[in-house]
């Protein structure tokens, strides 16, 4: 997918009508007229979200065979299945904006597409599963929850279902978290260690504070973006820092504190260079996870082929 926004001269009347509708809080349905730039930005956002769901299934998938009990194994399997399901729903939405699923998947497995920074990191211990379910899904929930009121109706509908299921992921994660946090000193240490390793990627998750730019303004006005990166990060901190403190664990940032006057958290500025590197598929697990996705994509080619042949055969009337 090209990285730059297309420059297209739009019909001014249609553009004005579109902008007025979005401004009035209306949503745009699939197939309706939209400015090319809107289509491009919405597609970029949804495509990246879809990629992240299916790549995001991978770190936790590694823990299905090693889950500590049958109940945990079943719940984790259900969670991972939800994530892949989210991917499927989102690729469908992306398709309504004019890209084929084959094209998007091919680009992803070739390592030419982006997916969320947090899914480029290893899940080293069972405690990482707790951190992913509570904090990574919790972070994603802030972004996705806000986007439920975005201007593209098919995306908004799908996000409602996704958020409903994400709530289960967070509750499941909190249960795993609680078991470890109230467990033996070794379990607590394992949880603290995982939290420390995940802190920076989670702070990165929301992206750099938005520059004040005409582009950001437009995304907000078109409601492809609903809240700023920093607003979402603050919202996340307000909800999730208390969970860490409640269980007597340490927030991995010694400078993090609540500023009453400003009603916000201050924190150590994370290394944004790392986020840029990881975003370009240069994270510690990027290559390995992409290779895995590639391997299964190739291994399952026969399923796709069988399905399309079956369709062709039916079209010929060979199969009733």
């Amino acid at each position, binding site marked *: 997918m090209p990285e730059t926004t297309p420059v297209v001269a739009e019909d001014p009347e249609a553009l004005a009508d579109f902008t007025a509708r979005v401004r009035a809080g209306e949503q745009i*349905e699939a197939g*309706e007229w939209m400015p090319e730039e809107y289509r491009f930005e919405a597609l970029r956002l949804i495509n990246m979200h879809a990629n992240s769901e299916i790549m995001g299934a991978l770190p936790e998938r590694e823990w299905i065979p090693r889950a500590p009990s049958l109940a945990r194994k079943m719940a984790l399997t*259900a969670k991972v*299945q*939800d994530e892949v*399901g989210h991917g*499927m*729903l989102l*690729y*469908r939405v992306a*398709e309504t904006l004019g890209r084929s*699923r084959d094209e998007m998947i091919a680009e992803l497995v070739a390592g030419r597409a982006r997916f969320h920074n947090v899914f480029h990191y290893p899940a080293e211990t069972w405690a990482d599963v707790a951190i992913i379910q509570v904090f990574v899904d919790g972070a994603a929930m802030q972004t996705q929850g806000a986007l439920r009121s975005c201007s593209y109706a098919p995306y908004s*509908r*799908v996000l409602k*279902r996704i958020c409903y*299921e994400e709530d289960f992921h967070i509750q499941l994660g909190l249960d795993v978290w609680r078991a470890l946090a109230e467990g033996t000193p070794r379990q607590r240490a394992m949880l603290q260690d995982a939290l420390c390793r995940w802190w920076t990627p989670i702070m990165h998750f929301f992206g750099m504070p938005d520059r004040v730019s005409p582009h950001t303004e437009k995304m907000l006005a078109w409601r492809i973006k609903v809240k700023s990166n920093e607003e979402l990060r603050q919202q996340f901190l307000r909800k999730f820092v208390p969970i860490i403190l409640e269980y007597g664990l340490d927030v991995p940032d010694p400078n993090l504190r609540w500023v009453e006057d400003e009603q916000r958290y201050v924190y150590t500025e994370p290394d944004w260079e790392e986020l840029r590197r990881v975003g370009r598929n240069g994270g510690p697990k990027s290559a390995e996870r992409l290779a895995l996705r590639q391997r299964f994509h190739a291994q399952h080619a026969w399923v796709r082929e069988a*399905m*399309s042949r*079956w*369709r062709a055969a*039916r079209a010929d009337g060979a199969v009733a």
Partner: protein
Amino acid sequence: MQGRHRDAHVHAGDVHAPDAEMALVLAKENYTRRDPCVNLWVVRADQIHATTRPAAEMFVPATDKSYRFGGSYRQQRRVLQSSYKASYRDEDQ
């Protein structure tokens, strides 16, 4: 998707599938993991006939349609009864 027998089917979402059989499998996997379901329908998107968005105006009633609703009659009855009772009590005194 039908939640219980005899309920109306409700639209749940769409799937990407080569044929109806596969669409049913994918719809089951995607939309019935939690919600109760006893029956699924799938239909090709290009087989749906719909009114256009600007046509929403044609559903807006041109005149007051309160006479179509039971509520307006209930309201009238309340008004009548309350005045009747008030006058009845007046005579009583």
